[in-house]
């Protein structure tokens, strides 16, 4: 099965980054620990692990599209297998880091370090197994969604030609920075109120259970997955230079 | 062995000729094994199928024979066979053409004989 081989390949191209990443995290944690000990402990909170692994997944996704497509297609692997291997690897990787992160945070808390992840901030009331499992699950799927989002972004860049790359690189940030506020100002009041109602109600829904958050991430992951698949489905081997 | 890749003669025929030359000169003695197809094709960078075709030509003419699992060997009396063929070819290829050319250049038979003697002294 070439999915397994691609999986291994993705892993071989990740673990140095992973070691560096967790090495840096561990160093930061130790630094924080020392500061806490010397400052007499207390109300210092750390949540370094929780977001940065999602960021790492995003970056991996961006890199994987071009690297995996080039290598896979050049070594007799179909686009289908390149894609499935990636999705499987991202999920496994996200699960691995989620477990490590959660364990790290919980140990930190047990040691009285007051480390707290985002999910704990949203769901401070959770103390049972099912709830905690939900938190871990939301992390796993959240990381996966980030990875697939990165893959989609990487794919979009891979498929675009030079002119489009320049256009997109300028217009997308510009739209986010200027376009969005303009849209909010210019939109008719009926739309703004609808949006204004939609967001708080969504957040309420999310706050009810980590499983709702998981579902939201899953939706995002599937969406990014579908769009990425459309990008890789007919992708050629493209090599710069 | 030397191959003239520019020549009109197909390479497989050149392969056959070169092996014949080696047999004539005694480099490949009768009843001895000749280099394998691979050795010849690697050394002269020729497609193995081409070399094989050349060898098949010689096997057909009974100059070479195959020992199963060992390789190609020079047949007994191969040198004699080749010599006979070459003499015939010499007559057709050189003598007949020499006379044709001589006729064009108005060279008499006596002159030709004289030239041959001179050439012999030079060689």
């Amino acid at each position, binding site marked *: 099965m*070439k999915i397994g081989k691609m999986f291994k390949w993705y892993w071989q191209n990740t673990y140095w980054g992973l070691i560096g990443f967790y090495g840096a995290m561990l160093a930061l944690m130790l630094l924080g620990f020392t500061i806490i000990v010397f400052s007499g402990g207390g109300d210092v909170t750390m949540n370094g692990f929780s977001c940065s692994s999602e960021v790492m997944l995003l970056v991996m996704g961006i890199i994987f599209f071009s690297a995996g497509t080039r290598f896979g297609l*050049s070594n007799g692997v179909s686009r289908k297998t390149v894609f499935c291997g990636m999705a499987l690897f991202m999920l496994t990787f996200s699960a691995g880091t989620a477990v490590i992160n959660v364990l790290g945070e919980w140990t930190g808390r047990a040691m009285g370090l007051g480390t707290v992840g985002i999910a704990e901030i949203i769901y401070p009331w959770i103390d049972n197994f099912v709830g905690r499992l939900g938190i871990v699950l939301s992390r796993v799927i959240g990381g996966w969604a980030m990875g697939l989002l990165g893959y989609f972004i990487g794919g979009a860049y891979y498929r675009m030609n030079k002119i489009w790359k320049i256009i997109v690189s300028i217009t997308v940030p510009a739209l986010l920075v200027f376009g969005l506020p303009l849209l909010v100002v210019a939109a008719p009041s009926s739309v703004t109120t609808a949006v204004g109602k939609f967001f708080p109600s969504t957040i309420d829904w999310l706050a009810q259970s980590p499983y709702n958050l998981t579902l939201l991430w899953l939706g995002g992951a599937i969406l990014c997955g579908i769009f990425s698949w459309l990008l890789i489905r007919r992708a*050629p081997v493209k090599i710069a230079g | 062995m030397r191959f003239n890749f520019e020549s*009109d003669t197909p390479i497989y025929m050149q392969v056959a000729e070169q092996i014949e030359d080696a047999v004539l000169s005694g480099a490949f003695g009768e009843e001895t094994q000749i280099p394998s197809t691979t050795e010849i094709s690697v050394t002269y960078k020729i497609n193995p199928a081409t070399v094989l075709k050349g060898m098949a030509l010689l096997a057909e003419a009974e100059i070479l024979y195959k020992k199963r699992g060992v390789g190609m060997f020079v047949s007994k009396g191969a040198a004699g066979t080749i010599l006979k063929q070459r003499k015939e070819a010499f007559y057709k290829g050189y003598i007949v053409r020499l006379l044709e050319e001589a006729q064009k250049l108005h060279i008499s038979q006596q002159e030709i004989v004289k030239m041959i003697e001179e050439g012999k002294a030079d060689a």
Partner: protein
Amino acid sequence: MHNSIEAKGLTVQFGTVTALDQVDISFGENRIYGLLGRNGAGKSTLLNVMGNRLYPTQGSVSIDGEPGAENDKAQGKIYYMGEKNVCPDGTTVRQLFRWSRDFYPAFDMEYANQLAAQFGLNTKKKLKGLSTGYLTIAKLIAALASNASYVFFDEPVLGLDANHREMFYRELIHRYSERPSTIIISTHLIEEIADIVEQVVIIKEGKILLDRPAEEVKRMGYMVSGKASEVDAFCAGKQILGEDQLGGLKSVCLLGEPENVPATLEIAALDLQKLFVQLTNA
């Protein structure tokens, strides 16, 4: 079982440019092919489509009777040695060999290492740090050791010096004699492969111009030279490929076999390179 790669009606369009135009061709078992064409004629495009690196606009490829596109099993039979490096930046030569073994289970690691030593290639080096010649050598070794049923060499001697080219051709024939496979060599150095290839395929402007045994191709044309007026008289009504004139002396390349040539005219063979130049000119 048909042990061959068959392309049917392949068309590839890049925007308004037609890189391949309704190409039908087959590459049979255990033969060495020379795929020739001028820059941009469509050689790499054809190899890319057969190797699933590029989707055709139209048409299909089958490998040993199975569909070739998006087929892991069928594509595993093809090793494509391309012009450029397809591995991630930090990849070392050793890593390239290991990955090749992962994806081509018949890969012969011992042979690869032996070849690396023979060519003086340091396997600890990163591909990015290698010179053009040594990058080519690293890829050549991976291709030779792959033991795939179909091996494509796209510009296999790029940046190699004469000695290394010689070593490669010999090793190629050696390997082929011991473990036959279908080999397609796409190169501009025609003379160097003229006697290695069994079948010649010439591609021009996205179409197959010629697909014949090398031995036949050599007898496809000839060159006749002599006094201009006599040459012209002889060439009348014949298929002329090209001509050169030097004062009163004229030489013309013709298609076909020489017949009834006046004794005053010189006849010379048209080797593969000369024929190629004549056929693909203009």
